């Protein structure tokens, strides 16, 4: 009896000491690990830049930018285990596999580490919240807005998609169709499919120019299609006349912006993404916010996000790239 009281007392004391210990460390310097799919990828290097920006803004935050050398789930599990051993305060991860990482991340959460996923998500069990770069509705609205912004008097636009069965593209086009009412005078005259092949997309873009001589813009919500369409428009000598827009990567679209075949296009901004993920991880780790459906989490200069039923949220509209900022981003991703 006496002995048991003694043990429980010791246990209580040590627990108290460890609690004191962690809280003392947190005040000292909060350590947030930004785990990426693989090191050496421009997109993630840019995200790390954003995370550092957030750390400077918050103060007392140290960013550990880490990840495996190749994009495997096993590599990320090793990284997570080592982070648990180091006792970091938060892990923000872009996952190589939604399910394989769940056990390791669960273990991290049991140790009191805040776990969120960003960019590429983890299954609900393995994280407290997930930050999507954007949402289908925001993307659908953005691609038509990009075309409409350069057509104040209205005009004819056509969509060049990937394959006719591509899930992402079909959802975005559907979302785009829903908001067409907000852009009076803009008519979608045709939707064609380039199957994400450079030659087929090029041919389809040529076909669009032939069958719709008054075409004003081509919207391609796919990275192969937008590049091929821009090339077809430039080769036909219609750069400046037909605006190719949609979703693309700055490194791949730099030539099209230069030739004038594309006035602007969009994709998420990795710097903002790294910044927001860090802000959210900090807010959850300091318990300034809680991760539950409906709760609102602040993320500094990016405003705030509201979590949905699956504890996921969309950061913002895709970021627009044009002649003014393409040079800054084309070497990043």
């Amino acid at each position, binding site marked *: 009896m006496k002995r048991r009281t003694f043990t429980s007392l010791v246990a209580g004391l040590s627990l108290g000491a460890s609690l004191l210990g962690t809280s003392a460390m947190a005040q000292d310097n909060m350590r947030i690990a930004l785990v990426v799919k693989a090191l050496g990828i421009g997109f993630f290097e840019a995200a790390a830049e954003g995370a550092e920006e957030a750390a400077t803004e918050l103060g007392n935050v140290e960013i550990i930018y880490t990840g495996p050398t190749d994009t495997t789930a096993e590599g990320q599990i090793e990284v997570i285990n080592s982070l648990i051993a180091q006792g970091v305060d938060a892990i923000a991860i872009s996952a190589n596999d939604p399910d394989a990482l769940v056990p390791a991340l669960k273990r991290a959460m049991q140790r009191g580490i805040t776990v969120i996923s960003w960019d590429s998500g983890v299954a609900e069990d393995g994280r407290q919240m997930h930050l999507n770069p954007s949402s289908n509705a925001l993307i659908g609205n953005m691609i038509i807005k990009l075309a409409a912004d350069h057509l104040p008097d209205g005009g004819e636009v056509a969509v060049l998609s990937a*394959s*006719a069965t591509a899930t992402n593209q079909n959802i975005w086009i559907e979302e785009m169709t829903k908001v067409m009412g907000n852009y009076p005078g803009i008519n979608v005259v*045709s939707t*064609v*499919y380039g199957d*994400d*092949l*450079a*030659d*087929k997309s*090029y*041919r*389809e873009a*040529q*076909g*669009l120019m*032939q*069958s719709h001589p008054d075409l004003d813009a081509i919207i391609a919500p796919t990275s*192969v299609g937008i*590049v*091929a369409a821009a*090339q077809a428009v430039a*080769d036909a000598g219609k750069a400046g006349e037909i605006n190719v827009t949609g979703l693309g990567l700055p*490194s*791949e679209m*730099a*030539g*099209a912006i*230069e030739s004038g075949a594309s006035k602007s296009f969009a994709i998420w901004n990795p710097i903002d993404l790294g910044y927001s993920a860090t802000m959210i991880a900090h807010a959850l780790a300091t318990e300034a916010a809680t991760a539950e459906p409906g709760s609102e989490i602040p993320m500094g200069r990016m405003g705030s996000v509201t979590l949905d039923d699956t504890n996921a949220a969309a950061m913002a509209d895709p970021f627009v790239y044009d002649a003014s900022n393409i040079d800054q981003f*084309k070497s990043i991703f």
Partner: protein
Amino acid sequence: MLKRLLMSREALLAGAILLLLAVISTRFPAFVTPQNLGNVFNDTSPLILLAIGQMIVILTKCIDLSVAANLALTGMFVAMLNVAMPGLPVPIIITIAISLGAVLGMVNGILVWKLAIPPIVVTLGTMTIFRGLIFVISDGKWVNSHEIGDGFKAFTRATFLGLPTMSWIAILAVLLFSIVMARTTLGRAFHAAGGNPHAATYAGIDVGRTQFWAFTISGALAGLTGYLWVSRYAVAYVDLAGGFELDVVAACVIGGVAIMGGIGTVMGAMLGALFLGVIKNALPVVDISPFWQLAISGGAIIIAVALNAQANREKGRIILKRAEHAT
């Protein structure tokens, strides 16, 4: 003589292409303007080049499924070479592209010749290896239009006597290989090696070596097309020309090349490629659902093969005429 010429497979196919153009013009008249037909021919030039190479390979009872991967690997290689050494003149780049393509073709040829592995297995394997190599050399990254030199891109856009260079290359290749196939020992050997390998061996033709040269020619043409492709579309990535090998085989089959070897002409391969090229270019402008487009392309191939099978069906032969009369 005239009747035979009119009834030849090439004439029938040319007629079919004209009929196709007539049907398309009822729905979209602008398609048959000389300007647009020139564009269609130019767009089909890569397919014509590859179909010539494939025809020679099929003549020798083989098949080359690695052409598109060869094209993509060579294309990626010369694109990266251009980025690394922007000063390299285009003629040298083209020479490198043809040589590299030929070497890759020789790999196929050696495996088929020396190890006697079935060509479909060899080229399925090398197809995957070549695609893998593109990933290895490029690290999965694209070579983009702003990184590729202007000279590199200008070559396929230059015009000579109203036609782009790419069209001229296809025309020259058709003329060159028509002569090679009809007038040289090697050309006749291709026919003999596939038509009747045993008889060819007795006539002193090394069937394996002939197949080796067929693969080498196919590879060299794929290498040349690799450069043209990257120059034209101004982009190089791992999946470049994905699935194109099937179009190439289809062009040959439509062009009357017998898949069992021994029968086929350069003109047929070119017309087969043009038939597919017209369909591919017409479908986007006649506004047909993409699902139907696939069905129409497939239907055209099956009809062509069915006609082929009819035409090539041998009538029963009486080998002992005297014996027949005797009974």
